[in-house]
């Protein structure tokens, strides 16, 4: 179908024909999406393209109205974030990831606090493991007691990502991790993503900024109007070509003179056509 689906046990997450409605809004119209083991996938698209909805389905926040989800080759039902987490899918949300007035250690173990025999928090274990988790991300912070509100935006993302991999995530979904960050902080976050990859953890990187994702992603998926638009290896395309496609929101139909510049783009064009047929078919029902 596209350049990606080589199903020889490498596929970690595979979502097929995902539909999602919010009332009368058809937010996802049969989207296909997959992530291989240890792969970093950039998920791009304009506002309202369905990126957030898609990852909320993948992280159990929303349930798909139709479609199938496979994880490590088995079909799964994700009814809550808990289900997703149990499989090893961790999501790092942009603003809502951390509690600013709590310590780093309390944030990292939020909802999964280890306790002693007396039922109290095992604080020494929380502190030690927090520092280890941060160190594994290349993040050196003074103390696990520091409040998150005292950290920079980049460091906060680091804490949130460290938390995800500390609990043995196989797939980390990053929702706009570089939004509202300074240039230096963006570089930090991109380094965290490389650390993830080095540890064999797959990642989905959602962003508006192609330049950010281009330097770390193996593959880029573009959505438009709730449909697949492009699914292409980073090395087979350029920032300019992709940003052009995203800006137009279509590959060829709207601009008949446009000729797909690569084979993968042509494949994606065919896929988009399918998605639109599905939509029409459904409207008839």
């Amino acid at each position: 179908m596209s350049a990606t689906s080589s199903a020889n046990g490498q596929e970690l997450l595979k979502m097929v024909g995902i539909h999602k409605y919010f009332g009368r809004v058809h937010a996802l119209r049969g989207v296909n999406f997959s992530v291989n083991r240890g792969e970093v996938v950039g998920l791009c698209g304009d506002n309202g393209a369905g990126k957030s909805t898609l990852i909320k389905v993948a992280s159990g926040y929303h349930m798909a109205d139709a479609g199938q989800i496979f994880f490590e080759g088995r079909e799964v039902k994700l009814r809550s974030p808990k289900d997703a987490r149990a499989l090893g899918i961790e999501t790092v949300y942009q603003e809502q990831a951390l509690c600013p007035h709590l310590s780093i250690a309390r944030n990292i173990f939020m909802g999964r606090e280890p306790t002693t025999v007396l039922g109290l928090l095992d604080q020494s274990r929380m502190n030690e493991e927090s520092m280890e988790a941060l160190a594994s991300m290349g993040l050196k912070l003074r103390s696990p007691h520091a409040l998150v509100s005292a950290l920079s935006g980049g460091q906060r993302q680091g804490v949130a990502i460290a938390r995800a991999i500390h609990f043995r995530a196989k797939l980390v979904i990053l929702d706009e991790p570089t939004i509202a960050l300074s240039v230096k902080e963006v570089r930090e976050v991109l380094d965290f993503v490389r650390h993830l990859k080095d540890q064999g953890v797959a990642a989905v990187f959602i962003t508006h900024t192609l330049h950010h994702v281009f330097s770390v992603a193996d593959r880029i998926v573009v959505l438009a109007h709730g449909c697949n638009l492009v699914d292409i290896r980073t090395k087979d395309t350029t920032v300019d070509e992709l940003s052009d496609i995203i800006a137009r929101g279509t590959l060829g139909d709207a601009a008949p003179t446009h000729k797909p510049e690569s084979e993968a783009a042509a494949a994606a064009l065919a896929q988009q056509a399918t998605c639109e047929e599905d939509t029409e078919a459904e409207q008839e029902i």
Partner: protein
Amino acid sequence: MPLLARFRSIGVLGVLLLLVIGAAALTPQHTFIQEANLKTLLALGPEFGIIALGVGVLMVAGEFDLSVGSVLTLCGFFFIWLVGSGLNPFVAALITLVSGIAIGFVHGLVVVKARIVSFIATLGFMLTWRGLAEILTAGVVRSHNFEQYPLFTQLVTGRLGGVVPMQLIWFILFAVILYFVLQRGRFGNWIYATGDNVEAARAMAVPTDLVKLTCFMLVGFMCSFASLLQITRTAAFTTHMGTGWELQAVAAAVVGGTSLRGGRGTMVGIFLGALVIMVIDNMIGQARLPYEWTYIAFGLVILGAVLLDLAVEKQVQRATA
């Protein structure tokens, strides 16, 4: 951590000491520090203090309960009605406590499920429960002879070793238990997380609705427990129990460093904050000032505490930037 935030609890202790010294110096004939008054303060004060502890925990979870005075009244009615109908006081107390928890459950359910802002929802319940208590009593002051239950009164309003009021023991006991729950326990971390950033907590699978519901039930329990203390002490019921306590409890928590926006606060701070309010209340009585002065005093205390809270928050923000 910024200076103001770090020394917040010590600051409250300082305020408390200043108040005590001031009260001792300024009350006529220094009645404030005389034994009789201190005994009264430490026996009556905990009735309010116990409720304030619960309200403080609820505020850390990011919610308010303005109905505490009315729940106290309604539970007080249940208790005196039950013992008055000949029930064993321990059984009556148990039923009263369960009904307090049930009332808290209703509050929590309305806030969590109907998504009504707790400030407004509990304002509604404040009127509802007091109105209900007034209808049920039909304006009659009920009294009951509690001297017939020596064991019960000894446990509730007696004096440990003939000196320390049992009310103070209960107050300290609840504070210690809640310290471990809030600051050292797993559930406590959920309370902080829920109050600080409910979305983040939910995303990390913290059962935020359950956390809030439990905190509302805690407040209901504390109100009903305080009603046992007050009814047993006064041996009578009026519908004017705990008027004004809803805001005094909020004031106690805020004075103790609890954030009005949730997510911040310590049990030591809330405990000391409750003592500050107890002392102010007592001091104004001892200074023979008209009761109206307490309104002015509490108003200024709340404003001062909120201003200090803003200053702390600003320092934290600046440290972040």
